[in-house]
């Protein structure tokens, strides 16, 4: 922007002055992303960042999936010597770490980054530069751990890195340090996005979108962001203690000097259990959106679902100890956590029943997204119920840390998060790209995935009950686990094939799929009120919301508000509960500094693995780039 424009309000064109076509063009220029590498690295468009987030998330899903394939090959037959224990331990740790930290959490946030601003009817996410920064930190963190793995420095203590095994004495070298820093990377990224989502939902909603008109998708992502805000600091604190124990001889987990290995477990699971819900709540967001659209009616029991989301959020912080039932805790305390762990079945049940009610009263249209949601019901309910067994202390002493638990949490996480996620990709792909995904291939994908998943994971319940502990790199032939494991491996192969179909479908449809149009499913939420893919500014005019299902309530014309600047980035700020228009805040322009900051932060994080002094010399560097990032570039920005 030019420095000469000192006169306030001099000739600032507003959208009221322009005809529709001209308006769209001017807005697209104002909100657009410049070309070239610098332009690409400077973008603050939530859709571009969101798309990168989604693609990167799927890249890590593929990498984590390949690790799973390697494990299934090793376990297919007893006494297998395909993979030795050292590599196997790294592989299963990479699998868990990747799926939880680099896929599970980020992919939910990725879809939120793309869709929440569209659904609440605004032009960009709150703090878009922070958003860009968080993406690069996430990307660099993920690359760091996979490069480390390729260099034989892959972490090898399991995704929850129990001390003392992950401590300085029993994990020499740098493997566990890379793991601890990976946690720091991904937590920084996740927390930043969580803050953006919270503020976007609270302040950037379109005028008229009162609290009770917020789509269930957005509610779920909103509650999810709070879960992240309250859960992630625990693991950041824990991983910091771990790396200090390893590098600076602190004694947090050294029982000989007053520490306690169980402190790690408490901190980790205080994060680790909400983590499961952090992965699952985006799943409920997808299900609510898909069920409403394909049952052709609003989701039944909106207030009940919102309240149960919030209840889930609260309860999820009260049950971390059920991961520690076998550590020899006092019995009475354990009972409290049995009760709270079982109690969380109630809010989850409410949501399931409301969705089933919606389908009962609606008129279901069986397209691929709905198929995946039906698969979700089948698998997730089974996983949730086996979770009730784990909540019982006595039963847990038999099944804890066995393949029964492996089966349980794959039923919960793949059923509760991945199936809805795939459904969501089929559902929103037209919005992302302007083209439909192939329906025949979609059905093929669904059935392969559904059958493959159950064949792979159901037998694990039985092998766990028959005594197979998790995290074993092999097992003797005479244990009688071989057939079950072979079946699991074959199922896993089928599951992999289903993803190949998916990848082919995406690749083919992105180029040659049917043209989607603005609202191919006749859905009700605001993201379908704009073009597919949406223009850089999302909406030519900011919608005015009159109903919980705006596009079903306003069939003829869309009510909008006007009076926003065309030549500079402005978003409407509304009041927190009533969503009355309050301010026209400027939204930051593209800049390359978040990218540079992310690089500096990455260098600092990796360097601290080798010397704690990296913090001392890194902090001023980080401060400098942050100043460059935040310092206003023109007086315009100060207004």
């Amino acid at each position, binding site marked *: 922007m030019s420095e000469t424009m000192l006169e306030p309000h001099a000739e600032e064109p507003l959208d009221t002055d322009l005809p529709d076509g001209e308006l769209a063009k001017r807005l697209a220029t104002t909100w657009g992303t410049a070309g070239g590498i610098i332009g690409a690295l400077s973008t603050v468009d939530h859709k571009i960042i969101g798309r990168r987030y989604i693609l990167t998330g799927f890249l890590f899903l593929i990498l984590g999936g390949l690790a799973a394939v390697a494990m299934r090959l090793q376990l297919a037959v007893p006494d297998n010597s395909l993979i030795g224990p050292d590599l196997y331990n790294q592989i299963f740790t990479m699998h868990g770490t990747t799926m939880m930290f680099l896929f599970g959490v980020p992919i939910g946030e990725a879809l939120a980054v793309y869709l929440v601003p569209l659904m609440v009817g605004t032009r960009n996410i709150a703090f878009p530069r922070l958003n860009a920064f968080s993406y690069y930190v996430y990307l660099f963190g993920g690359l760091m751990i996979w490069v480390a793995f390729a*260099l034989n420095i892959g972490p090898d203590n399991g995704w929850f890195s129990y001390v003392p095994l992950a401590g300085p*004495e*029993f994990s*020499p*070298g740098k493997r566990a340090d890379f793991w601890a820093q990976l946690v720091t990377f991904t937590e920084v990224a996740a927390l930043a996005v969580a803050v953006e989502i919270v503020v976007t939902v609270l302040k950037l909603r379109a005028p008229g979108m009162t609290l009770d008109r917020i789509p269930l998708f957005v509610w779920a992502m909103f509650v999810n962001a709070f879960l992240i805000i309250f859960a992630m600091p625990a693991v950041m604190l824990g991983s910091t203690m771990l790396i200090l124990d390893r590098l600076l001889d602190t004694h947090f987990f050294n029982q000989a000097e007053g520490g306690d290995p169980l402190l790690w477990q408490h901190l980790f699971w205080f994060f680790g259990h909400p983590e499961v819900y952090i992965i699952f709540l985006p799943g409920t967001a997808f299900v609510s959106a898909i069920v409403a659209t394909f049952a052709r009616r609003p989701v039944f029991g909106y207030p009940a679902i919102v309240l149960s989301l919030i209840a889930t959020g609260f309860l999820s912080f009260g049950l971390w100890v059920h991961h520690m039932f076998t550590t020899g805790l006092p019995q009475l305390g354990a009972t409290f956590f049995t009760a709270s762990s079982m109690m969380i079945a109630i809010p989850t049940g409410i949501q399931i029943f409301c969705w089933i009610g919606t389908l009962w009263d609606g008129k279901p249209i069986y397209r691929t997204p709905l198929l995946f949601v039906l698969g979700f019901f089948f698998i997730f309910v089974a996983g949730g119920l086996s979770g009730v067994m784990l909540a019982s202390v006595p039963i847990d002493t038999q099944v804890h840390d066995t393949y029964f638990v492996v089966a349980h949490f794959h039923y919960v996480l793949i059923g509760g998060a991945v199936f809805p996620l795939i459904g969501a990709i089929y559902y929103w792909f037209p919005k992302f790209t302007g083209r439909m995904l192939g329906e025949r291939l979609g059905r093929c994908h669904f059935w392969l995935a559904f059958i493959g998943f159950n064949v792979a994971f159901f037998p694990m319940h039985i092998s766990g009950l028959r005594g197979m502990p998790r995290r074993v790199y092999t097992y003797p032939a005479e244990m009688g686990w071989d057939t079950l494991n072979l079946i699991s491996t074959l199922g896993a192969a089928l599951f992999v094939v289903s993803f190949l179909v998916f990848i082919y479908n995406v690749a083919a449809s992105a180029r040659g799929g049917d043209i989607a149009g603005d609202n191919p499913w006749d859905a009700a939420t605001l993201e379908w009120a704009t073009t597919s893919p949406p223009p850089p500014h999302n909406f030519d005019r900011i919608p005015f919301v009159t109903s919980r299902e705006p596009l079903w309530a306003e069939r003829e014309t869309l009510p909008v508000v006007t009076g926003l600047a065309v030549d500079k980035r402005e978003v409407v700020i509304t009041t927190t509960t009533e969503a009355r228009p309050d301010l026209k805040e400027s939204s930051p322009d593209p800049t390359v500094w978040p990218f540079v900051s992310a690089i500096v932060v990455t260098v600092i994080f990796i360097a601290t693995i080798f010397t704690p002094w990296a913090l001392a010399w890194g902090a001023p560097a980080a401060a400098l780039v942050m100043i460059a990032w935040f310092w206003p570039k023109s007086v315009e920005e100060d207004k």
Partner: protein
Amino acid sequence: MRRLVAIAAAIAVLSACEREDREFRPPPVGTEAEAPVTLSSIAPGTGPAERPGEMGQAYEENAYHLSEGKRLFTWFNCKGCHANGGGGSGPALMDDSWIYGGALLNVVQTIREGRPNGMPSFRGKIPEEQIMQIAAYVRSMERQVPQDAAPGRNDDLMPRPSEHRLPARPAVPGGTVPPSGQAPQ
């Protein structure tokens, strides 16, 4: 430029591999490997410390070997005489003086053959590569191994900072046997 990057990457790959390898099944250490050092710097204070051979370096730069050495140092009760490196009835291992030479193979020799005034011979009692591991660990107590391979603290009482936090120091051959360690005349 591109070549430089490639070389840097290759070095990074190789060094990382060595540092983090867990070599459970050692390559055969033949008796011929013992020969070259047997007679070299046995006498105190003669000449500069010799450079450790290729193989020695592999032990000293490998975190797994060093931590194994640390474990065996306790298991085989080296602590009984040398305490945690500070010395007791045996000489201190943390100071920078080496009575019988401070190179890895000198230390190996000391462990394998024993020394006068109380250091027993472990020839045949400790397998060759475990001697190498212990010797490499002994040198890490004076931080003559890379910092990022040196062991961290144990889950135990901590009488002193762990090996990887010690300042790096060069080996100085020489020194005296403490009076407590001298055999009765």
